[in-house]
């Protein structure tokens, strides 16, 4: 029976080896290319990297909600752009017949918007649990994250109408989230911006104007109040930016350069990419032989007064087969070699808007002279004489017309202005004919989202 003895030892050895090494053997090294949440928010440096990650993700791709898309799709839906790519997806935006499964609708606008909001929420949640970050850094990052949460909710609510308000990172809540009504979304936007206003510093945290400071928050808040028709607050906030004397209107051709005295917030395009700005890359033609992808509509071109210098400085044209194509020329560089310094930055907020916000607020508050003087600053810069509008109705229309040419193909201003002033049916109905339905003012909720979240409802008309 000696053999049994051997066997016993052997089995004991194997079982022993397996059991004792169990827990230990299957411990693995962490992935080399990732950090755990805890370690990210354990020191200033990596926490700053987290907020930098938000900026970097916003500018990561061309023609996404935070980087170019707002200058293209709403411009197609409104009366600013024609499309020449033959791309059926884009034609659907011009014809105001966006299919519910439209690819950019979900991917470039909705989804990316909520990704950025998640990222902001993740920073807010983890930062509030962290005690090892210096207060100044913490406040600044906190404020920036709040700013962007408000920023993207603002664009979503203006594109889609009532939208889900995503306030946490818990996917179990966010997956079944319903649409909040517009008022609730705006309440949150205002609350976030007011918080941010308190938290971020007056000075930009880094060189150049590519991170959010107090004036960027204030300027955006002015716009939000304008949209809410809270004229008093709009005037106050815009006034705070204007009276700070930090920014002033620049010459037309300097407006979109990094050195522009006018810009309040710019985004730095990724240095490794060949494009300069998403707008420049999208709007400027490939070559002198081929039509640009998009051209400005006749109605937009006819909105320019003859002497308007913006028509020559911010618009360019080319002739292909006797047809003249006008295209946006605010950004003048289509692409640069990858790695080369960027000569233009994507302008998010600028003084021109603050004057027009204040003009509109003042007009509505019956301060017509004040409104005229703000408006005239913008007109004079473009080489135009003072406005002749001197009653409220005419002045408000003059401000809208000024906004149309001042903000052409810039961040969807025209599309949102038409909607908030209730002029979509009149103006777009006349231009687009039978393609235009009143319900087209709101983009459809993407079908993919409807399928994976049964709490969502569709907008009328889709």
């Amino acid at each position, binding site marked *: 029976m000696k053999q049994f003895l*051997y066997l016993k030892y052997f*089995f004991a050895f194997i079982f022993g080896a*397996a059991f004792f090494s169990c827990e230990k053997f299957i411990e693995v090294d962490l992935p080399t*290319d*990732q950090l755990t949440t805890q370690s990210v928010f354990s020191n200033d440096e990596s926490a700053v990297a*987290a907020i930098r990650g938000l900026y*970097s993700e916003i500018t990561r791709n061309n023609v996404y909600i935070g980087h170019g898309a707002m200058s293209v799709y709403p411009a197609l839906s409104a009366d600013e752009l024609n499309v020449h790519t033959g791309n059926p997806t884009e034609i659907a935006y011009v014809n105001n017949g966006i299919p519910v499964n439209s690819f950019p609708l979900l991917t470039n606008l909705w989804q990316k918007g909520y990704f950025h909001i998640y990222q902001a929420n993740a920073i807010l949640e983890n930062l509030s649990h962290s005690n090892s970050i210096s207060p100044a850094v913490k406040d600044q990052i906190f404020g920036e994250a709040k700013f962007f949460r408000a920023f993207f909710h603002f664009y979503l609510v203006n594109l889609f109408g009532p939208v889900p308000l995503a306030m946490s990172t818990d996917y179990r809540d966010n997956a079944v989230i319903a649409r909040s009504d517009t008022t609730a979304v705006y309440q949150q936007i205002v609350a976030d911006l007011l918080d941010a206003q308190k938290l971020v510093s007056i000075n930009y945290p880094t060189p150049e104007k590519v991170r959010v400071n107090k004036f960027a928050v204030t300027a955006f808040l002015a716009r939000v109040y304008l949209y809410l028709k809270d004229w008093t607050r709009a005037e106050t906030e815009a006034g705070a930016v204007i009276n700070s004397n930090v920014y002033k209107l620049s010459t037309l051709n300097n407006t979109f350069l990094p050195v522009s005295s006018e810009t309040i917030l710019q985004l730095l395009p990724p240095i490794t990419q060949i494009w300069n700005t998403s707008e420049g890359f999208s709007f400027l033609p490939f070559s002198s032989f081929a039509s640009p992808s998009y051209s400005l509509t006749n109605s937009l071109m006819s909105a320019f007064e003859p002497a308007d210098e913006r028509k020559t400085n911010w618009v360019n044209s080319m002739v292909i087969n006797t047809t003249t194509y006008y295209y946006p020329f605010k950004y003048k560089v289509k692409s640069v070699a990858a790695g080369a310094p960027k000569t233009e930055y994507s302008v998010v907020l600028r003084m021109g808007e603050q004057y027009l916000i204040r003009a509109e607020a003042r007009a509505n508050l019956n301060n017509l002279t004040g409104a005229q003087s703000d408006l005239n600053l913008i007109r004079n810069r473009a080489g135009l004489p003072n406005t002749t509008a001197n009653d409220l109705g005419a002045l408000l229309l003059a401000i809208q017309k000024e906004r149309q040419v001042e903000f052409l193909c810039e961040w969807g201003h025209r599309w949102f202005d038409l909607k908030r002033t209730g002029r979509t049916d009149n103006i777009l109905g006349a231009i687009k004919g039978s393609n235009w339905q009143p319900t087209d003012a709101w983009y459809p909720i993407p079908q993919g989202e409807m399928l994976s979240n049964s709490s969502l409802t569709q907008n009328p008309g889709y």
Partner: protein
Amino acid sequence: MKILCVLLTAASLYLPARGISQGITLALQNAPLESFFKVVEQQSNFSFVYSKEAIAESKPVTIEVKNETLEKVLKNVFANQPLSYSINEKFIIIKISGKKKDSLIEIRGKVINEDGEAVPGATVFAQVTNKGISTNERGEFILRDISDDDILVISSVGYYKEEIRVNKETNFLIRLRIAAGTLDETVVIAYGTTTHRLNTGSVFKVSGEEIRKQPVSNILAALQARVPGMVVTQSTGLPGSSVQVQVRGRTALDLSLTDDQPLFVIDGVPYAPNNGYLNTLRSALGVPSTTTGVALPGGLSPFSSISPSDIESIEVLKDADATAIYGSRGANGVILITTKKSKVGKTTFNLNVQGGFSKITRSMDLFSTEQYVDMRYEAFKNDAVTPTRSNAFDLLAWDTTRYTDFKKLLIGETAHFSDVQASVSGGNLNTVFFLGMGYHSETTVFPGDLKDERGTIHVNLNHVTQDQKFRVQLSGNYNVDNNNLISTDLTSYINVPPNLQVYDSSGNLAWNEGGVVTDILNPLALLEQEYSAKTDNLISNLQLSYKPIKGITVRLSAGFNDVSVNESKTVPYSSQNPLQNPVRSASFGLNSFKSWIIEPQAEYERNIFKGKADIIIGGTFQKQTNEVSSLDGSGYVSDDLLGSLNGASSVRGSKSSSQYNYEAIFGRLNYNWENKYLVNLSVRRDGSSKFGPDKQFANFGAAGVAWLFTNEGFFKKNPSFISFGKIRGSYGKTGNDKIANYLYLDTWTPTFNSYQNGSGLAPTRLFNPDYHWEKTTKLEIAVELGFFKDRLLVSAAYYRHQSSNQLVQYKLPTTSGFTSVIRNLPALVQNSGLEFSLSSVNIKMKNFSWTTTANLTIPKNELVSFPGLSISPYALQYVEGQSLNVIYAYKYIGVDAAKGIYKVEDLNKDNIITTADYQVLGNSDPKFFGGLQNTLEYKKIQFDFFFQFVSQVGRTYFSNAINPEGFRYNLPMLTQDHWRKQGDVTTIQRFTQATNQAAYNSWANEFRRSDGVFGDASFIRLKNISLSYTLLNDAQSRTLRLYVAGQNLFTITNYKGGDPETQSYLRMPPLRTISAGIQYTF
């Protein structure tokens, strides 16, 4: 189906076995006795056994008989001879009369197998003296008092029977050949071997021979339709492309997260890349999924570097009994690949040279330019849109008289392949070796000089000490593969407008004809985008075993596997539209898998009561790492610099690594009661690093039983036409852990771009430590029967696999910040079915034989339960009680004869078409599938042909189409029959040219989501023909063989589309290959 029926009927027509009473017709005049023997051997199943002395004593024969019984003929002939005869089974033994007693001798001998191992317990039987004995532990035997002219018959389970004439010799070394193709053939199973006869589980073996008869370069492709219950699908017909394998149906609800590929084990070592893909860059072979890293269909196959010539056999393990010992990795079956082993014997050289060519098989006929132009104008007319240079540049800016047959241009070439294999093997009783080398080269049907080359080295060494106690075995494979393709499968461009300008007037690649800049790519430009993947693959295994005392073996198996792929891809200036701001770029990728495994084992054999018990116990320690790095350069100043990063103005790189640790203890108890009752119990406890804390360990196990009822006394006493009968069953639990590493961690990853000279961090995924293994509970009951002395073997099995705890990327609305999260879904998927296999020797004569093997599977896949399905994101994808491949869609009811647009059924009659109108409209699972092989041998000629058949519904052309008919794409001829005017009754709607049209909407929102895009995809394919002629086969065992083979020769199908297997006319179909070769062994 008709063909199949005929063949099956033919297979069942047995020639009646000819017995002793069969008729002999002959006429001999003074002929030598040996020529009499020859005639009788030709006319009967009997062979004569005799010595030279006996013939020397014989007298000439004169006889003339017609249709006389053998008995009488023999009596007649031997009446005048000084010889006597006796009949023993198939032998007629001739002895010199009256010589018996004075020539009794004692003989000694040893019985070994081909590996030189002693064969204990083999029966040695002396025919003449009618004496027998079994060999001892060391395979030795002594037989006393037997005739010096005796016939020894040596038999042992698992080996072919050997007959040896004693011929006055007294010392014998008898080598038994391992039985093949019979019940006693060795079958490789987990941690050991068994035989078909004694196996309690479901294991199907495909021999290396069977694989090598097919001129295919991927060993997995050679398994197609050969194994019951296993579906093998080639993703494309390009060299190096992946081959998907599914054993007993689909279990994965979410193929982007887990896969239901079986576990691949090569020589006992789990293959590090399993059956994933190897490429990290996009190539013509397929696209790696960017989200999960799990293989999408297509990609570079990890098996493309392995040569079929190095394969000894492939075993497919299916049921719980066979797979539970693989624990968390056995749920989807296990495929054991065994490479060639050495055999004892004289040094043998083998040289095999083969060459052949391939063409595409099925594809669709497309419109001519005239038809295309008509189609486009018709679409504009239908939509009441005026063609302009911007919306109809193909009509107004392009030459509308030009025609290019893009199918011929892009995929119409002939691919060539050549293959050279050389090996040398041999050795003595203690040491044997096998050395093999091979080279394989294969081109494509694309234009240009693209190819896939492979070089392989295979080494196998075996040594056993003189006392047979210590054994060492080393096997090593080193394979190098160089896959030179392009970045995109050109088949996806065969539908470009046929008037697209390919070359301009000066012979350069043409772009933007008529000055209109378009996104339409000149497909020939893709040939400039070179792609190459260089694979290095080392698979090695060392096995040490020691038998300290009788019945105990301790074993250590250690393996190492290193697979690395070096890729590069270039996008030169010339491959891009010069007016669309071309940027030169190049990408480089390195994907490396390293895995080592150590498995200590102990085995104990002992007789307990009347049975034999075999206990094996062991442990597994495995560590696997995967490193992926990639470098992208762009902004080069010259195409010539694309091979390097130095000329790039911008370089981006990434590198990641992951680690997987796995350990287990396992045990198996096998008990065999007199070859009648068999019980097999296996257990395993697994630990894996793939899961979060507290979810890392789990237990698995199974029980298998078998009853060989033909070994019961009552059967032995009353032998019938049933020669073998076994009923077996098994039940057990296995798991599936095929999920990427670290998925439970919520981590932050450096962002794609930096911002202000600093890298950013962004969240990678949601925190989720709760997911766990998938579980599959397997049940199987099978009957295996042999008839007519095992000439006909049939088996039928019923299986039921229930998979639960499904791992899914639970789709989230993007408001959650991510598109999905991993969860174990409380769903139950059941795969059940019937599997039949048959092998039969239809005719067996001296010069002619005909054998048939066939298999048939009738599977059923069912999503048994899915709590909360209706409110889950899968509500529109799956239906309880239906297959996972359910067609849940609108019901297509034809084209509206008045409006000319597609119509689907408004099920709930609410006058709008919504997903509430979805209905169950069948599924795309195969209804049945199988294969049928026939082998005919006549003298030196062997002829094989193999049919594959599948009955299924699949996605047709209508599902492949990117846009509705009328857009700027060429169309297949079958769309000619479409709606043109009011009142037309057709199945294809009117042509349309833009997305803002009603006809587009009806296509995109209704037809595309209806069952109209499905159709019959059943087919019968003559998968393989092989014909070989043995020119030389002499006594020194020199053989020279010539052969030709064909693969995918023809397909009978009603399928509307490209190939019914790949089900896409925009992907390269499997090719038709013809090859010829020569094999010389000396």
